[in-house]
């Protein structure tokens, strides 16, 4: 054998495509399904986990005179409701930055607020706080927390530096960019090294940060796998297929 044998070679990533187009893998023994919508489903707890919804980002720009279409909250809710209808989760967990700013909850249209209330019927909503919404929602149903455990996992908004086995987080809005001779695609993605996972942003107007960006350095114990969001499925993309912006 060559010298290579001395270096610990990590096992290849173990994942499976689920019939719904999702990508299933285990983290610290917890069975998780990455959904093409960008939501994560914890099968044991029937928990639907979404990150960085940035409700009312459009109206935050609108207040400053830049009139982005005021439909981002509605659009995000459409997709969230579809996931709830498809999976019937017992609990919906928001991984922080659910609101674009501290006053965003006040700007929710009555319609959109009512939809969030309806979402809490028959299930629990848990709002982790993020840097954009440090107080969490004040009037909407659900529980506001900083971090929370979920079986062997720990959930928080912003990934902590160093190795964090079992952590699920958001905040960074990971994006995968893949180039081929026929062109380039840039898509939101899950990012995981098999011990922790960073979720893509779920909000309609949330931008993305390339997984090759320095902000991701040091977070993974080996080159991460990207679960890139396709139209109806999540594509497992290896590190070597990714390019920077």
């Amino acid at each position, binding site marked *: 054998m060559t010298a290579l044998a001395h270096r610990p070679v990590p096992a290849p990533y173990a994942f499976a495509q689920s019939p719904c187009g999702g990508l299933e893998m285990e983290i610290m023994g917890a069975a998780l399904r990455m959904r093409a919508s960008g939501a994560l489903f914890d099968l044991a707890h029937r928990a639907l986990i979404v990150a960085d919804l940035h409700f009312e980002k459009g109206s935050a720009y609108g207040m400053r005179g830049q*009139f982005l279409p005021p439909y981002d909250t509605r*659009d995000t809710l459409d997709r969230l409701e579809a996931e709830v209808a498809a999976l019937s989760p017992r609990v919906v967990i928001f991984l922080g930055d659910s609101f674009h700013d501290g006053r965003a909850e006040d700007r929710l249209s009555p319609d959109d607020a009512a939809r969030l209330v309806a979402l809490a019927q028959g299930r629990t909503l848990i709002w982790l706080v993020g840097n954009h919404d440090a107080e969490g929602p004040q009037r909407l149903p659900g529980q506001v927390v900083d971090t929370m455990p979920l079986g062997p996992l720990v959930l928080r908004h912003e990934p902590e530096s160093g190795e964090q086995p079992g952590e699920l987080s958001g905040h*960074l809005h990971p994006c995968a960019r893949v180039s081929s001779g026929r062109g380039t695609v840039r898509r939101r993605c899950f990012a995981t090294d098999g011990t922790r996972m960073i979720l893509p942003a779920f909000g309609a107007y949330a931008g993305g940060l390339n997984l090759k960006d320095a902000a991701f350095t040091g977070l993974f114990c080996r080159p991460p796998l990207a679960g890139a969001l396709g139209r109806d499925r999540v594509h497992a993309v290896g590190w070597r297929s990714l390019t920077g912006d």
Partner: protein
Amino acid sequence: MAEDAALPADLLPAAFADWFATRGWAPRTHQLEMVARARAGRDALLIAPTGGGKTLAGFLPSLIELAQRPPANTPRGIHTLYISPLKALAVDVERNLATPIREMGLSIVAESRTGDTGAARRQRQRVKPPDILLTTPEQLALFCAWEGARAYFEDLSCIILDEIHTLHSTKRGDLLALDIARLQTFSPDLRRVGLSATVDDPDVIRRWMGFHGGDGAPPPVDLVLGPAGTPAIVDVLLSEGRVPWAGHTAQHAMAEVYEVIRKAKTALVFVNTRFQAEFAFQELWRLNEDALPIALHHGSLAAEQRRKVEAAMARGELRAVVCTSTLDLGIDWGDVDLVIQLASPKGASRMVQRIGRANHRMDEASRALFVPANRFEMLECQAAREAIAENRFDGDPPRVGALDILAQHIMGCACSEPFDALALYDEIRTSGPYRALAWEDFELVVDFVSTGGYALRAYDRFRRIVKGQDGLWRARNAETILRHRLNVGAILSPAVLSVRLAGRGGRAGRKIGEVEEGYLEALEPGDTFIFAGQVWRLMGVTALDVLVSPAPSSDPKMPSWGGSKFALSTFLAKRVRELMFDQSHWAVLPADVREWLELQRDRSLIPAEDEMLVETFPRGKRHFMVCYPFEGRLAHTTLAMLMTRRLERMGAAPLGFVCNDYALAVWSLNPMDGVDLDTLFHQDMLGDDLEDWLAESYMMKRAFKGCAILAGLIERRFPGAEKSGRQITFSADLVYDVLRRHEPDHLLLRCARDDAATGLIDVARVGHMLARIQGKIRHAVLDHLSPFSVPMLLEIGKERVPGAAGEMILAEAAEDLIAEASS
């Protein structure tokens, strides 16, 4: 036009007559005519070829008025405003005006103002306006958004619009037309003067220039025609080698082109794409045994590098410049005596413009040489040559002003002073492009500017413009105004990356040039490519830089630069079809092209001018359908996208398609001989099929982004501002998706659709074509490919074949195909 209608003898004051005399010139009829029109207070459009003293004719009335102006107690405002589409041209005209002003001892101040003008001069110009100000449409839009614009321009008596033929059919032209209407309100006696190269239909420009005469009035702008100029001598290179079946590089003719350059004083070598420019430059230098100074000029080179080439050209140090449309317009270079057009001319008007770059003197003919790169281009070059000889040109359809530009203008008006909606509406309709603007659309745009114009009234509290108690609309606050000023203009520049030498440790070194975002997308690190005349290896791409290292001896993998942005003009396409059908006309063509046409006639058929030929034939395990609409690559691509959808439904199982300016080929698993062509090409193709495809297409997203920026929904990004925190900004694509899902009828989606339909996919042209060929489709069912189809099949899969290996594969494939078609 009565050229010799008696002009009053005293048109020119003595000082001016003397000045002409000392120069040894006689004032030309059209110059005097312009003076007479001005004296009568008439607006005028002067159409004259290059070198006819056109600029002086435009300025002469103003110089006379200024020279005769009595002294005033108080400083006066600007007398004459000159608008040029190019910064460099404004500066050049400033220099040229200085001569008569100095030599006649006139006390007239003429100054330019462009984006490059220093802050001190700009400030001074604002406080103490020059008599003549030379500037660009973008600067004028900024002026009009100033507080105090009305007072600044109240003395304005003349506006001169130079090279107007390049502006009137664009969004820049829309913005300019609106600003002219504004100026006319500030100074009701303002006289408009247009200067244009020869165009197909001067009335289109006359109507664009103004409408303030009211409904039903004859065109309010007088037409003055300059002398016809000496006809250009245009030759088509009938290569000694055979004309290739396909390809766009004209490689076969490079040795002959080099010989022609060697015999000329200075040559401009025009090509259609940056790739062709790099390729031709490379080839010419390979042949350049005499080490002639031959330079390269295209839009991806660094600005300072382009300036260097232009300066060397102006000093007469160069023998040839290989260039793209970047040199279509610009300052005069007296020494250019030959214009070479490599590959397809695309349109007659553009060619006349390019040919006009040679020999800026009226009495000598300009010389031009067309070098076709393939057989269809040989037909196109002949057709263009004949059109130019007959003085026939492509027509621009009259322009309907874009609503995103209108939004920008309305915001600008509010930044300048409070406005009354009805008065502004009336003013806007005096501008050509907006003369038919409906009040409902105007209201929509005002609401868009104010609140974003959404059905969900989310922003009524944050209005950008607010209607006051007095019924007037005002900008919300100083911040809103400042933000608008940073976003003025109708030019959209794609994000650019710098190409830099890779330094040690992956750091960026010296800058070599700039490329547009997405330009090197198909390349991987380690790949080689030609740029700025040299071969480079791509080392990596960072946020703002493309890092490269020299790879002098490598065989470059040339990135496809994409096709030309110019489509084959409808007019020229028609002439090509005529030439093709008229067998008595074939004598002008070289023997091999003639044989090719004869072969096509015998083995398939040659359609009449108003017919469209469709061929179907099997080849290998595939079935092919090739049709020949001659409507340009853009329209063909759109048509092919829609056709393949239909063929899919008809069960043909289409696999792919390829398009060029003349034809398109679709291949499929199942035979298409039995396809009902009338159904396939029915006009309802532009209904649901188009909508479905368009909604998802990247072209709509691109168009939307452009409209959103021009209308002020998305702000322009400035270099350096986007380095960090990409996840906290938003992308235009996300906004597009959300808006399309929730308010598909929104004004900006309408704008984007119109833009995509005209510019990016040429729907209008597809529509005209479908109407044209109703009942006129000629179907040739063949057992094998036809001579005409060979160039199309050679295009298949061409884009991604690297280097010499690819050339070999192609060459072999080409020989096989040609043998097959001729057998």
